[in-house]
């Protein structure tokens, strides 16, 4: 591994840019993601920055049970994220539909049918520490030596 590559790895591990998208949740998981930004959990000390702009993002947090309004939008949003990219499902909704997955409802879980999901954080809602540890554990495996592996 070259010196440049190891420098890139160090820099990448200290700046993970996150965008989150709510594809039809009850807003509970959004609040838990928001709690990560607050001083108690403070994700910026781990080098995670929330921009909520897919063009700048490395990690996409998908929240919600996938309502029909997102049918073409989520795909195009996922394509807007530059490589290397990773999507993490936050909460039960993108995994199983949780309480909304009942007969005669319009939700279409799991989200992994629509975009590739690398990690799942179950819970209704998950604790902010669980979200944080999921991002921190997935990011190195995806971003380390990205150019060399390609």
């Amino acid at each position, binding site marked *: 591994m070259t010196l440049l590559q190891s420098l890139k790895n160090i820099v990448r591990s200290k700046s993970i840019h996150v965008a989150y998208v709510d594809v039809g949740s009850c807003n509970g998981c959004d609040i838990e993601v928001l709690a990560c930004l607050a001083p*108690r*959990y*403070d994700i910026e*000390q*781990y080098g995670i920055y929330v921009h909520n702009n897919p063009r700048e993002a490395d990690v996409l947090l998908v929240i919600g049970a996938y309502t029909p309004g997102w049918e073409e939008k989520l795909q195009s949003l996922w394509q807007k994220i530059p490589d290397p990219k990773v999507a993490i499902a936050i909460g*039960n909704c993108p*995994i*199983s*539909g*949780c*309480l909304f*997955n*009942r007969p005669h409802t319009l939700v279409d879980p799991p989200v992994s049918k629509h975009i590739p999901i690398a990690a*799942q954080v*179950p*819970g*209704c809602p998950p*604790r902010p*520490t669980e979200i944080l540890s999921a991002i921190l554990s997935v990011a190195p495996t995806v971003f380390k030596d990205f150019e060399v592996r390609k």
Partner: protein
Amino acid sequence: MALSLLYYAQEFLRGEWAKKFLAAKTAPLVTPPHFRNYPELTGKTCTHQLICMMACPAPGAIDVVMTPEGWKPRIHIGHCIRCGLCVEACPNGVLTSGRILESMFYDNTKLSFSFRIDVDTEKCMGCGNCAVACPVNKLIDAQMSHGGRASTDDLLLKVSEGKCHVLHVEKCTGCKTCENHCPNEAIRVARLLEAIHSPEEEL
């Protein structure tokens, strides 16, 4: 001058200090002991009453399966919402999560179930599928005819005059077999979950 420079060098040229300065992080937060995590088995014997499944508000979160050691409740992570109702509802204390069992003991609380069956008379065609499928009816009158008509009035559900009638709602166990067998979505079973404080005094 030289002394103060030396002092500063002593203070800031330590490797430990530099490392702390460059990677300032608070200690990871620990999960508090009162946190209701996914229910875990206590090791007590499950008697297959399925009350946990009835209390569970999340679809597909809990089921009770037969294992070589006997019946065991199984929690599906990704469906479970960690509400702890199965822990509270279980009469045998098979599951545990956080401090739910302790607080139930100190507060002297208990969950009780009752069920309500609503028949939409406009939608009901009187086909009798619900009355025939009902496992409670089957125990009372095993010879019930296919139209749901029977001579006895001890039944839970019975068809008379072309409509389904609920006779003894207190016999309902909340299995929702009637709801699943209704071709017209006319019958609905509602579960009424009630927390009772100090159940001995009530009796």
